[in-house]
């Protein structure tokens, strides 16, 4: 503030002496009380609503039932998990691990051959087996070869009645020998 500024000081004096006049505090009092009551009321309503919605959890028998139900749910969950784990373990034992070797057939080809083998009505043993693709291919080829030879043999027997009779006779004799044993 510049000391020599007389007009400024006069204006300031005027403003200092003129205190803003609050006509009545009654309106303010009334409005403040109303607001406070409104705030208190809204707080009360909220707590009432919470009590209404969740108050039932404080009933003793409901609490006990909820505890029992939750324990039962946990036990069921544990049982289910153990069953699932056992099943996974059982299934993992059924898997066939195949090894790839150089010069072996492509995987899809081997799979096709494997399907042929399965469709022939043969079953794999339940224990784990570990074989190479080459071995698998040889096995299937030999099975197929055997099947062809068997069919050829059957045709030969059907075409030649004498041979058929001879084989039947031989089989009957073999059965008798087995029965005698």
């Amino acid at each position, binding site marked *: 503030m510049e000391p020599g500024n007389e*007009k400024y000081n006069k204006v300031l004096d*005027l403003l200092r002496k003129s205190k803003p*006049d609050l006509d009545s505090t009654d309106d303010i009092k009334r409005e*403040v009380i109303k*607001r406070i009551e409104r705030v208190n009321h809204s707080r009360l309503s909220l707590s009432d609503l919470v009590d209404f919605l969740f108050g039932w959890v404080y009933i003793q028998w409901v609490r006990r039932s909820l505890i029992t139900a939750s324990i039962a749910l946990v036990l069921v969950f544990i049982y289910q998990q153990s069953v699932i784990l056992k099943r996974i373990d059982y299934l993992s034992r059924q898997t066939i691990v195949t090894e790839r070797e150089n010069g072996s057939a492509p995987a899809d080809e081997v799979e096709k051959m494997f399907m042929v083998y399965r469709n022939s009505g043969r079953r794999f043993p339940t224990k784990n087996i570990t074989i190479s693709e080459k071995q698998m291919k040889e096995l299937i080829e030999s099975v197929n070869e055997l099947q062809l030879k068997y069919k050829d043999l059957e045709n030969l027997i059907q075409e030649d009645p004498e041979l058929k009779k001879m084989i039947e006779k031989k089989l009957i004799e073999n059965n008798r020998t087995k029965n005698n044993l």
Partner: protein
Amino acid sequence: MIDIQLIEECRGGNFSNFRKLIELTSPFAYSVAFRILSNEDQAKDVVQETMVTIWQKLKKIKSAEVYKTWTYRIVVNKCYDQMRKKKRNPEFVTDEQTWELISNRISVGPSAALENSEISKIIGLLTERLSYKQKTVFVLSDLEGMSNDEISEITGISKSAVKANLYHARKSISEKVEKYL
């Protein structure tokens, strides 16, 4: 003068004593709010909001001795909120009429107190180019007669910042007065 005993009773939740506290607090809270905002309705709103806040947080203040400073701080903060709202809807006053009013009042002499509407116009005109901080510091220091320490405590700004803001506020108002009066 606000009795410490009264504040202590209100801190204990005595609602009927709080009416008395509203009666005692409202005038000085209104004076500051009105001088900062230059608007009667907004100042009354600030006083109401301040009293509601006081009721809600009175238990949290450390002691009854700091009540007045604490109340001023609430008022200043509420005024700041109002000022931000006001920025969106600025009110325009006719400068020439207001300068004429100031001139007339000064010539009559310091004994003639101003009416609320006149105070509002004059403070509004003198402080229209000041920032919120400058205006608040000017009102608290030069119109309410507070020390820099008190202002620093109320506004939460450092003492040096209070001095700087006050210097700029006084300079701006002084220049205006020199120019137009």
